[in-house]
Each structure stands twice: as C-alpha cells, then as structure tokens.
C-alpha cells in the first residue's frame, strides 16, 4: 500500500499540472469495455485518501485486532477492498468502474462479516450487500443507458457531452437510476439503514468504510458524473432534497444514540447528506465545497472512529451511559478525540469549520429559493448545524467528561504508542488544514475541483478569516444552539421515546427480506418438485412435442425420402431380432439386476456388430472394449444394491411411462428412417482427400480425431478426466454396507484357473495394445482403442486375482497418469506454437528403424499418447474406486457367514 502511495505521489506532478493520464488495455472492445484507467485531479484526491488513510488503518488494525485472530485473512480482505476502491476512482471506463463498484460491495460484505460467528455481523453484512449490491444493479442499468446515449463508455467522451446527455429524452431515467445506485452506496435516506448496522464490523473496517471508502464511492460518482448529469432542475430537486433530508435526519438520530459508534455512524450519514446537498445546489462553488468537505470528513471521521475504537478497546463497552470521564484515564486520546469531534461540529481553526463555512456561504448566496423564501436555506443550514454541534458535544462531553465511568468491564488506560499514532497523524492534518488551509490543501483542492467541474473554477480562496459576515454569525449561532440543544437533551430523549419508539428501517428491511425469501421458496417448490422422474418426464414430453412440431411445420412431411432402399440381408434381420430380445429383456427384467445386465450386454454386442457390418472397425473395437468395462463396472455396483429392486407403487404411472417411451421410440425410428432415405452432402470428402497428404495417416477416423479435429478431442478427454475425477471425489470416504447375501468368501471370488491363465495374458494384451496404438494412424486403432484394450487387460487381472493382488502389483496413481495424459496432449498442442504454427498443428516424417518396415512418426502420435493415458487412467480409476469400496465396506450383520481363508 505504501508502494502504491509512492507511485501515486510520483505521478502527482503531472496531475497538478492539470493533465489527465489515461492508460488503456483493450479487454472486450465489442462491448466497449476496455481496461482503461484515468488519473486526474479528482481520482488523485480519492486515491490519496484511500491509500493514505488505508495505510494508517493497516497500522492501527495490527494493534486493534487480537493476536489470535487470523490477521492474514483480515488484511487480505482489507487490501482487496482498498484495491477495488482504487479501481473505482481510477477507472476511465464506466463499465470498468461498475465492475470495481461491485467488487467493493462484495469485499465490504466479507469485511463486515469478519466476525462471522456473531449473528448480527452476518445480518449486517447481508443487509449491506443487499442494499449496495442492489444499488449496483440499478447503477448498471443507468450506466448502460448513459453509454448508449453518449455513444461511448469512456469518461472522457461522456464528460464532454453533458449538454447532449441532458437534452436526451432518456435523461431523467438515467439520472434516477445512477442516483439510486450512488445513494444506496452513500447511505442516503431512505437507503441509509445498512450503514449503522454495518458497524458490526471491527472498528478499523468501520473507520475505513465511513471515511475514505465505500460510502465515499457514492459521492465520488456524483462528483465524477457532475459535468454530465448535473445542472438541471431535476438534479437539484432529487439530489438536493435527498441530501437535505439525510443531512438533518442523520444529525437528529445521531444525538439519540447511546452507542458512540452508532452516534458516529449516523453522523457519517448526516455528513454524506451534506456533501450530497452541496452537489445538489448546482453551483460551481457548492461543488468545490462538496469536494472540500469530502476531504475534511474523511480525515476527521477516520480519526474519530479510530479514537472511538481505542476507547472501546480499553473499556470493553460502547455505551455512552457507562463510559464517562475518560479524560482522566487517557488524556492524550481524549485531546485527539476532542479535536476531531470539534472539527465534526465545525469549530473554528479546525478543518471541518472551513467546509461548513463554505456551505453556509452557499446557503446564503444560493438563488434557487430567492423568489419566495430567501431565508429558507440559511435557516435550514443553521438548524442542521445546531444538530451537528449537539451530537458532537454529546460525544465529547459524555465520553470524556460527565463524571465517573459506570461499572466498566476493565480499567481503561492509554493505548500502545503506535495504536494512537494514526490518530495523531490525522488530527495533525485536521489542525494543519484548519489553520493554514491554502498552504496545505489549496493545490489539491484546485485540481480535484477542476476535474470535478471539467471547466472554469470559480474564484475562491481558502482562508480561516473571511471577515465578519452572515455565515460566521450562522456558525456561532449553530454552536450556541447546539450547546443549548444538548443541555435540553433529556427532554428530547423523553419525547422521542414517547412518540417515535421504533424509527427503524432495518426491521422493515428484514421483514421484506424474509417475505421475499419465503415467496421465492414457494415459487421454486411449485416448479421444482425435486423429483428426477418428474423432470425427465417433462423433458421427454417437451422433446417429443418439439420434434413433432418441427415435423409438422416442415411442409412436405413424407417420411420416405428419395433414396432407393437397400436390400435387407439375413444378418440384419437376425441382428434386429437379437436387439429386440436384448432391449425387451433389459426392460422386462430390470428389477432383477444381474439378469438385466446380461440382456443389456446382448444389446451392446449387437451394436458392435452393427458397426462392423457398416464399415466402422474403429467403432466396433471401441464399443466392444467399452462394453466389457461397463459390464464389470455394473457388476461391481451390484454388490451394494439388492439383487432385486422393489416393485413400483402404481400401475397407472407405469403405463403412462410406457406410452411416453413408445412414442419416443416411434419418433426416433421415423426420424432415422427419414434421414436414411434422403440423400446427403458430406464434408468428409475434404478429410478423406487430405488425410494422407496433410495428416500423414490413412485411417481417416484417427486422423480426424488427433489432427483435423484435435481440439475437440482435447476437450473430450478433458471431459473424460473430469468425469473420472468427479467419481473419485464422489466416492471419497464413502462406506457402504453390502446387501445381505453378497459373496464373502475369498475362494468364490477368484477362481484359481482364471487367475493362472490371466497372468501370462497381461503382457500379450499389452503388446496388442501397443500394436493397435502404433498402427492407429493408418489402420483401425489408435489411442482410444489402445487405451481401452490396456484397461480391459488390467481389469482382467483385478477380476482374476482380486483387488489386493492387483493393487500390490500395479503401483501407480491413476490420478497422476490422468494428469500426465492431459499434460502431454495439451503440451503437444502448445509445442506447435514454438514453431509458429497454430495450436495443435501436426507434422510428420518417416523413419526406418532396423528390422521393421519403414515407419511413419507424426507429432499427432504424442497427442494420441496423451489420449491413451487419459483413457487408461480413467477406466482404471473408475473400476479401482468402485472395487475398492468392498475393502472398506461396513460389516453387515455379524450373523452372516464369517470370512474364511482358503
């Protein structure tokens, strides 16, 4: 953070010279979204506040938070939050600004919920997220419209087109949407309620949220878009009124709070209201005053919160009815607190006085109400000033004086030296600015205000003494009135308790929130009955309906196409008969699971034979191997499922399902028939013609897989790997009880003959798979088939020798092989970049090793090796995991036959 501040200061020169630095990195140009940053006076001012105060907060938090807390998490969140805040103030692109805006909502959610064990912290965080995040959505709408109207999402363009935007018919909509977002963030009435509750966060976070960040994002947006949106009557009405109401409301409630953090929170709301009101006044000078007050408020509020945190830390409570007389126990902290509070009240020689004075001047000079009530605004300003003074006095008097503390949990004393240091720095600035405003802040205020207005600055001078004038009288009237008001406070408390006991929007918010949650749960329950059967039924019905609709709307709906029919051969007819038997058997016996698997394997076999019959040896080999491993897989599962499934409840449902299934079958059959009898145009000609010259192989299927469509294949093996890893994760730590009657005898499971036969078979099978792999480029075979054959061979060892036998011999980690396979496949693709070719380009040449024929080696083979490894690892992982379940199964009833060793 210090480094960032240093960088910022290095860039300061150009900012003060009035130039705007813009750094641009193209991101999503088609959406008008670039990663464009902008550093001008306003951004510089905010960045300096965010980084400077952030640095002090970091130091302060180290002392504030107890050691045993996970400070790493806290700092990570705090820095992420600060960074996103910086992003807001330095964005050139308003879409980018919105992205950062949402990130601050999220990170502040996490910060407020830092003490997530506490219920109220979670409520507070949720509320802050709902309000500011919801505001962000509204702002998104506003910004999109603004970008449409301005024709660009870049601030430079938008700020230059203020007149066009203001005269657009969409202007009121844009304005209201943007303002709603800004007001939600800046806690303006009536969206203010999240802020006082958000003080459930640790005090360093509150200090940061309330002073330099978060709530300042809203007013920053007002300042940022001031040249584009301000200057109209609508702006004056909405911004001015909201600001004024918030200003008074916050100040009024602040006095009523007994918790001093609550008092400070409402004072923040009040001051933000003041800033908003100043922007709303629509004169250049009031905007300058607003920017000035942003600085001052950030500085004194951060120091006040940190001082409050010290007192809270030392006393163990925040109730001002119990904390009294702190001046005696911690005089240094008290002096700091008093100075900061004085600035909040607007006491002369402190910085808060200056900006408040500017506000009074504006109130007197503003022409808006000149017609009918020239004194309305000044009177209002003075009244609001009275309230601010009153709550400041309450803070100072109740906490630091007012007798002795009332049974505090611990005895307070001065905090560690470095915990107080950040407060000292800030209060030092308060004094410095208060006494020598032009020297200390003149320059930065000038550039920031100029950047806000994007035009001529009004002529103004920062000085403590402007002569004896009306605003000065108003200041002193406010201070005197505030004292009086404070003295009479007990009467006020009584009045408030009698007439307005539940002035609480959080309760209303919670009620609405809970009602909405219930409503959506009910709506969801209507749609989603959490039943797979229902979902599938709906899905199939709709698929059928759409299919039928498509067929109906294609006008010449004859099923038979123009192709001449092929003659039926006896093998085809027999195949169909076997298929029907297989499928019907699977359905008829699906409740007797072992029988169903046997019937299903018949179907798989027929499908493999079909592939042979119609010229697809690759597919036949693949289907056959997959068939074997699938059957083994399903048999493994049977151990944990009862051999028979329970009968279903309703016959009506069965017949409904049967009708749906038959309709689906009929639809699929007619679709197939319609397709098969129509001529077609294939794009395979290209693949066949170029397979040998470009891919270096004659097996077109394999060349398509590893070369022409290699990228697809990479995706496919990635899916395969994910399925295997998913299975690995799902079965993690699962322990099942085998169903009663499952085999328990070692001898039954591993017949000796099979075990003996299988051992010599393994090297043979591996040799075959190597052969299949190598020839794959030219003859049927390749990585997929070879991988499956290897997997089948190894599976046989498991079947024959048992899992313990096999596991003790195959000492490798399937997950690692999976990773290696993906790595090789991707690496092959990336390697082609080294030669300047696109991803996954392939090359090949021929080598002539001794003893065997001329042999072609292609880079696609390395890719195929990756495929091979993934397939082997995936199949083995699935089978080993499922087989391994039997090793950690729960013992069933001990009454069953005990295990005997053979």
């Amino acid at each position: 953070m210090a480094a960032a501040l240093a960088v910022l200061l290095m860039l300061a020169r150009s900012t003060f010279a009035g130039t705007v630095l813009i750094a641009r990195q193209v991101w999503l140009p088609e959406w008008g979204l670039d990663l464009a940053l902008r550093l001008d006076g306003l951004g510089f001012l905010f960045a300096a506040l965010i980084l400077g105060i952030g640095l002090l907060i970091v130091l302060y938090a180290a002392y504030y938070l107890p050691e045993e807390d996970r400070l790493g998490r806290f700092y990570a969140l705090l820095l992420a939050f600060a960074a996103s805040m910086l992003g807001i103030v330095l964005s050139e692109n308003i879409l980018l600004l919105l992205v950062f805006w949402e990130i601050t909502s999220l990170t502040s959610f996490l910060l407020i919920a830092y003490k997530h064990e506490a219920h109220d912290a979670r409520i507070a965080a949720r509320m802050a997220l709902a309000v500011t995040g919801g505001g962000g959505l509204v702002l998104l709408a506003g910004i999109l419209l603004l970008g449409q109207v301005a024709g660009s999402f870049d601030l430079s363009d938008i700020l230059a087109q203020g007149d066009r935007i203001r005269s657009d018919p969409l202007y009121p909509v844009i304005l209201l949407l943007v303002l709603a977002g800004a007001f939600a963030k800046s806690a303006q009435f009536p969206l203010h309620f999240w802020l006082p509750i958000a003080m459930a966060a640790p005090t360093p976070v509150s200090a940061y949220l309330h002073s330099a960040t978060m709530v300042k994002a809203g007013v920053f947006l007002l300042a940022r878009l001031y040249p584009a949106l301000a200057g109209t009557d609508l702006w004056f009405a909405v911004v001015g009124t909201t600001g004024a109401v918030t200003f008074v409301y916050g100040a009024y409630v602040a006095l009523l709070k007994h918790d001093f953090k609550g008092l400070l929170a409402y004072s923040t709301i009040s001051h933000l209201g003041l800033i908003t009101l100043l922007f709303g006044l629509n004169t250049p000078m009031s905007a300058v005053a607003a920017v000035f007050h942003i600085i001052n408020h950030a500085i004194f509020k951060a120091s006040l919160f940190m001082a409050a945190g010290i007192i809270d830390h030392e006393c163990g409570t925040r109730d001002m009815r119990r904390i009294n007389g702190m001046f005696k126990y911690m005089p240094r902290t008290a002096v700091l607190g008093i100075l900061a509070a004085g600035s909040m009240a607007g006491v002369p020689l402190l910085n808060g006085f200056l900006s408040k004075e500017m506000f009074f001047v504006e109130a007197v000079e503003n022409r808006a109400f000149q017609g009918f009530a020239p004194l309305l605004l000044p009177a209002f300003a003075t009244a609001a000033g009275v309230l601010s003074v009153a709550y400041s006095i309450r803070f100072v008097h109740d906490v630091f004086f007012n007798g002795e503390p009332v049974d505090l949990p611990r005895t307070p004393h001065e905090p560690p030296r470095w915990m107080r240091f950040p407060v000292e720095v800030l209060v030092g600035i308060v004094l410095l600015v208060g006494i020598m405003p032009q020297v200390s802040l003149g320059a930065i205020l000038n550039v920031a205000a100029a950047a806000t207005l994007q035009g001529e600055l009004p002529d103004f001078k920062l000085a403590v003494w402007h002569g004896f004038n009306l605003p000065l009288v108003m200041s002193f009237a406010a201070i005197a009135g505030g004292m009086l008001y404070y003295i009479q406070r007990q009467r006020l408390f009584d009045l408030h308790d009698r007439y307005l006991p539940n002035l609480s929007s959080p309760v209303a918010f919670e009620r609405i929130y809970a009602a909405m949650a219930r409503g959506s749960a009910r709506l969801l329950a209507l749609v989603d009955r959490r039943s797979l059967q229902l979902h599938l039924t709906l899905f199939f019905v709709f698929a059928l309906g759409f299919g039928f609709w498509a067929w109906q709307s294609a006008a010449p709906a004859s099923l038979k196409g123009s192709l001449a029919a092929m003659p039926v051969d006896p093998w085809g007819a027999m195949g169909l008969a076997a298929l029907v038997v297989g499928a019907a058997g699977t359905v008829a016996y699906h409740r007797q699971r072992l029988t169903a698997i046997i019937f299903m394997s018949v179907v798989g076999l027929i499908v493999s034979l079909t592939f042979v019959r119609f010229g697809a040896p690759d597919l036949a080999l693949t289907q056959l191997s997959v068939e074997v491993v699938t059957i083994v897989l399903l048999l493994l599962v049977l151990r944990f499922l009862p051999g028979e499934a329970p009968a279903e409840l309703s016959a009506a449902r069965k017949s409904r399902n049967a009708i749906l299934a038959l309709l689906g079958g009929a639809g699929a059959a007619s679709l197939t028939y319609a397709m098969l009898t129509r001529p077609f145009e294939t794009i395979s000609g290209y693949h066949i013609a170029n397979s040998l010259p470009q891919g270096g192989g004659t097996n077109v299927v394999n060349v398509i897989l590893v070369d022409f469509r290699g990228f697809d294949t990479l995706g496919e093996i990635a899916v395969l790997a994910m399925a295997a890893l998913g299975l690995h994760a799902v079965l993690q730590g699962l322990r099942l009880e085998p169903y009663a009657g499952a085999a328990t005898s070692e001898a039954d499971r591993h017949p000796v003959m099979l075990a003996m036969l299988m051992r010599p078979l393994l090297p043979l099978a591996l040799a075959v798979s190597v052969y299949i792999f190598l020839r794959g480029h030219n003859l049927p075979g390749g990585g997929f088939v070879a991988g499956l054959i290897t997997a089948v061979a190894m599976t046989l060892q498991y079947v024959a020798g048992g899992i313990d036998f096999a596991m003790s011999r195959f000492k490798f980690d399937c997950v690692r092989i999976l990773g290696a396979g993906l790595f090789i496949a991707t690496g092959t693709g990336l390697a082609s970049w080294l030669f300047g070719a696109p991803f996954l380009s392939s090359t090949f040449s021929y080598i002539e090793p001794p003893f065997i024929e001329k042999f072609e080696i292609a880079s696609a083979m390395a890719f195929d090796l990756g495929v091979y490894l993934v397939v082997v690892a995936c199949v083995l992982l699935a089978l080993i995991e499922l087989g391994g379940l039997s090793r950690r199964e729960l013992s069933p009833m001990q009454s069953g036959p005990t295990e005997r060793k053979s």
Partner: protein
Amino acid sequence: MELVVSAGIGVLVAAGLYLMLRPTSFSVVLGLTLLSYAVNALIFFAGRLNAESPPLAIGGANGIADPLPQALVLTAIVIGFGMTAYLVALALRTKGESKTDHVDGREEA
C-alpha cells in the same frame, strides 16, 4: 435395410426412455446406456448405409464409409463410459447417504 435400422433405433430409444423413468437409480443407468447406444447409432448412420469398406484413405473416396460421424461417435462411446461411471458413483453415494436407491434420495409416500 433402412427399416430394420430405424426399427432397431426406435426399440432402443423406447426401452431407454422407459428405464430412465423408473424410480431406482440402477434402472436409470441401464436406461441411459441403452439410450446412448441409440443416439450413437443415429449419429453413426448419418453417414448412411451404403458403405462398402472402412474409411481408409487408400484407394480414393469411392464406396468408403463416411469417417466424420465415426470420429464423433468414437469419442462419444468413451465419454459415455465416463458418464456411466460417474452416474454409478453418484447412485452409490446417494445410497450411502440416504439408505435408499430411489433416484430422489427418498422413498415415495
């Protein structure tokens, strides 16, 4: 022959759909397997029936099977296995957690 092939696919789809609508997870696995046979076959036969030899680029493009659907189906078969394995694992997990092999994790009332 077209009729034979279409009928075969239709039978597989019907059997697959019916099984997928059963309430026990194992039947759903069986149904899905049958349905994927059917779909694979459908894609494969998009290359039509008149192939005389496998798609090897040795003697020109005449009479050889269309390689593209074959390439698509080849990976689909292997992924089908991955999906079956994953589904089976899910079914077992459901069994372990809810003590029933009903697809919804609870017996019907």
